[in-house]
């Protein structure tokens, strides 16, 4: 496998579904951070065939990982400190996500109200159903910003 040097402090996000790494890069706001990021696409994986990996060198308190669980809770989060994996984080579905997905219901107040955040609330954790806080429309796949 392609080797992209070790990181001192940060995260290694492993087992990302192949092709999803760029979208995660955006959702974590990595484009706005001044840190080293390695995006590895289509790495070979025994478990998944192909997968993406993201390596992010940053202070481990700067990233909000809630959105990761929403996108795919099968992603493995390795927390790195002093060059070692110090924790493997379990991803749990966030109760609420803000401005990650957009409500597409044309009858929803979010469609006209100025700068109203798009907030989705976890309505059913067993079925992983998120609903718009305002109109309760179910979130459907492909509605990511």
């Amino acid at each position, binding site marked *: 496998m392609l080797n992209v040097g070790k990181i001192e402090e940060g995260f290694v996000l492993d087992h990302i579904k192949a092709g999803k790494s760029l979208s995660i890069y955006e959702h974590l706001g990595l484009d706005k951070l001044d840190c080293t990021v390695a995006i590895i696409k289509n790495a070979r994986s025994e478990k998944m065939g192909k997968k993406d990996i993201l390596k992010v060198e940053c202070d481990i308190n700067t990233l909000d990982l809630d959105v990761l669980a929403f996108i795919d809770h099968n992603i493995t989060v390795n927390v790195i400190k002093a060059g070692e994996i110090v924790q493997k984080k379990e991803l749990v579905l966030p109760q609420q996500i803000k401005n990650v997905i957009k409500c597409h219901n044309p009858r929803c*107040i979010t469609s006209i*109200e*100025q700068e109203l955040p798009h907030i989705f609330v976890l309505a059913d954790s067993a079925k992983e159903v998120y609903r718009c*806080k*305002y*109109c*309760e429309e179910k979130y459907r796949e492909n509605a990511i910003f």
Partner: protein
Amino acid sequence: MRHLMNPLDFSVEELDRLFDLANEIEKNPAKYAHVCDGKILATCFYEPSTRTRLSFESAMTRLGGRVIGFADANSSSAAKGESVSDTIRVISCYADICAMRHPKEGAPMVASEKSRIPVINAGDGGHYHPTQTLTDLLTIRSLKGHLDGFTIGLCGDLKFGRTVHSLINALVRYPGTRFIFISPEELKVPDYITEMLREKNVPYEEVIRLENVMPQLDMLYMTRVQKERFFNEEDYVRLKDFYVLDTAKMELAREDMLVLHPLPRVNEISVEVDDDPRAAYFRQAQYGVYVRMALIMTLLGLAS
């Protein structure tokens, strides 16, 4: 501070207290004629709904309060493009409580997040209309004495009728409830409702003809079947009389059955039924005022 967005915002116990107060007001209106002296209700109606607005205005006036507001979006700052968030911040300076109607779903909730005064959802598009549901429940409880153990027939447009969906969600909280859905195939109650009923083990039946089930019903909730909802004229002509309540159908019903309707009625209940003692829809409009009076008092903290 408490708002009312969804009929389920109040627990069954809270609803009992609200309905007790409404019945108190019904029995002794003079005692409540000044409890809101000096208070102002703002009716912010971004789309016209004369009946609902007048019901709120009557409620506040009967409590001794005053009413300000607008009756449609064209006559308000919304026409100039003001957001709901800005409007409610301003209304919070003018009034003590607000009833908001808006064509967009969730608009009253946006208002409640920015408001310094209690906000009542007076209808948000096809989403919720909680004071209608409270009206329906108070009518049943007042005329029957309780809310549990009834077989309720819901007739007409069960697909698009939000009052029907709301009422179903409210009644499943009472034990022994059983539903009979009476509608043409095209206007059946949506799947998510029947799924919810199966999950909660609430018995229900779906039928096409009203006559067949009349004798079983404790309550019949009528709604309008609109011609535009049908795929073709033929079906409409064939089916429309199934969903018109007349004296012949009333003869099949039990003596203590109640007929409810959210009003306005068009022709789904023949006027000949109006004089039948079981016709409760005009009394329902009266209970709509009592329940709004009780609600305004409760949200203003004047109930105890």
